[in-house]
């Protein structure tokens, strides 16, 4: 997968590295600002209230 990606990045070794870095930053930003905030509400460790139907986020 990563070898394939490296192979398909354009240019010399230096530009490949730069592109790879940019891709990495883009993926991290997507994870931290979109995916993680969307996912966490489905997970239980933020439940701090007591409520009769509790198990789902309060």
């Amino acid at each position, binding site marked *: *997968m990563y070898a394939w990606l490296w192979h398909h990045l354009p240019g010399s070794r230096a530009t490949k590295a730069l592109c790879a870095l940019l891709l990495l930053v883009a993926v991290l930003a997507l994870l931290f600002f979109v995916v993680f905030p969307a996912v966490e509400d489905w997970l239980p*460790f*933020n439940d701090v209230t*007591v*409520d009769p139907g509790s198990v789902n986020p*309060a």
Partner: protein
Amino acid sequence: MSIRKALTALGELLVTAGVIVLLFAAYELWGTGVYTSGQQSDLHSELNREWASASAAATAPATAPPGSTASPSAGATPTAVPGAVPAYDIKHVPLGSGLAVLRIPKFGSDYDKVIVQGVGTEDLKRGPGHYPGSAFPGDVGNFVVSGHRTTYGAPFNRIDELRAGDPIVVQTATNWYVYRVTASEIVQPTATDVVSPVPHHVGEKATTALMTLTTCNPKYSAAQRLIVYATLDATSPSGSPPVTVLAGG
């Protein structure tokens, strides 16, 4: 060699998935705290502004004709003097907005969390939340506040360390309230009787001013709830903070 290729791809995918899970853990533990500290500083300045305008309105001479000031609390407080109705009323703070400031001297002098109104997911991301419908600070009844234990700034991370007699200080626009811890317990997430006006006695009429903190237990889990009870010990006007208590006395 296609099997070898497939295994390599699978391995890379699994390693990637593992790294993403680790990143998610880092996000929960530290990333969410960054969000909350930003929200808390916004809430602090918002509260300071509102409280300043509320005290200005309260001390201003009642010369304005009744109804001339657009106040959200107008009409809701029939006993208030016309024209002297403060623009800020703790009982009408919208969900997600700041209500009071919580200080727990045991956690250090820099521990000052703005309590927001509401315990919805988004409210609690901003700071500890006041259960709508439970008593307000200083009032007879149960002032219930929930907060995160491990994420979003983890305001209640260490409330398991609170012991009987430890002070919990709540500051509102008008007063300082010093509550003293009386007990703590671990309950099931469905134990809603801990937030009733008289904890464990649903339907009973309250005669004392209590405060109850709820958070999840154990840390990093939501299997149970940790509940800390406190009772009102002292009240002073906003001009005279309980200095010795705040200093850890």
